[in-house]
C-alpha cells in the first residue's frame, strides 16, 4: 500500500513536470507567433492536466479505501499496451520520417519531441483500448 502511494506521488510529480514543460513550450511558441502550434500544444496541455487530475483523484481514493491500484489485470493490460504501442510507434516514426519534407519542423529536437509525443499518445490510446477489452488472453502481440 505504501509502495502504491509512493508510485502515485512519483507519477504526480513526473506528470506535473511534463505538463509544466508543455506550458513553457506553449509560451515560447506564442512568443514566436506560431499560432497553430500554440493552440495545439495548449489543447494537449489542458487535456493532459484534466486526465492527470482524474487519474490521481481516482487512485488516491482507491488507496484511501484500502484497495490496491495495481493487480494482475492492470499488469497484463500494461504489458499488452506497451508491446502494441512499441510496434505502432515504429510505424508512426516511419511515417514521420517519410513526411518529414512536408512537415515544417523547426529543428531535429522538435522532430524528436513530436516522435516522443506520438509514442506517448499511442501508448495512452492502446492502454484505453485494452482496458476495456474483454478477452485479454486472445490478444496476439
Amino acid at each position, binding site marked *: 500500500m505504501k509502495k502504491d502511494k509512493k508510485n502515485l506521488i512519483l507519477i504526480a510529480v513526473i506528470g506535473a513536470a511534463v505538463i509544466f514543460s508543455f506550458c513553457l513550450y506553449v509560451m515560447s511558441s506564442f512568443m514566436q507567433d506560431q499560432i497553430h502550434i500554440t493552440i495545439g500544444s495548449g489543447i494537449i496541455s489542458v487535456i493532459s492536466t484534466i486526465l492527470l487530475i482524474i487519474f490521481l483523484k481516482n487512485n488516491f481514493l*482507491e488507496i484511501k*479505501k*484500502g*484497495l*490496491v*491500484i*495495481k*493487480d*494482475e*489485470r*492492470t499488469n497484463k493490460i500494461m504489458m499488452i499496451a506497451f508491446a502494441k504501442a512499441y510496434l505502432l510507434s515504429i510505424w508512426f516514426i516511419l511515417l514521420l520520417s517519410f513526411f518529414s519534407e512536408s512537415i515544417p519542423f523547426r529543428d531535429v529536437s522538435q522532430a524528436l519531441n513530436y516522435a516522443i509525443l506520438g509514442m506517448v499518445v499511442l501508448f495512452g490510446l492502446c492502454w484505453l483500448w485494452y482496458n476495456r477489452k*474483454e*478477452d*485479454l*488472453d486472445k490478444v496476439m502481440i
Partner: protein
Amino acid sequence: MMKTRIKELRARYNLTQEELAEKAGVRRETISFLEQGKYNPSLKLAHNVAKILKTTVDELFIFDDEK
C-alpha cells in the same frame, strides 16, 4: 465462454465488490470484470476468490464448451 457465481456468492455473504476486492488484493474493476465473465483470472486469484467465498474454483467458474 466463462460464467461465474461470484455475484451470487458475494450477495450470500453480504460483501460488496470493494470489500471482495480488498480481501482478494485486487482492484474493484477486476472483480467487476470477473463477475461478468470478461476476465480469465490466474489460478492464484481464482483460488483466493474461491477461498474468500468459501467455495472451490470449479464451483465458482463455469466454462461453457465452445462449439
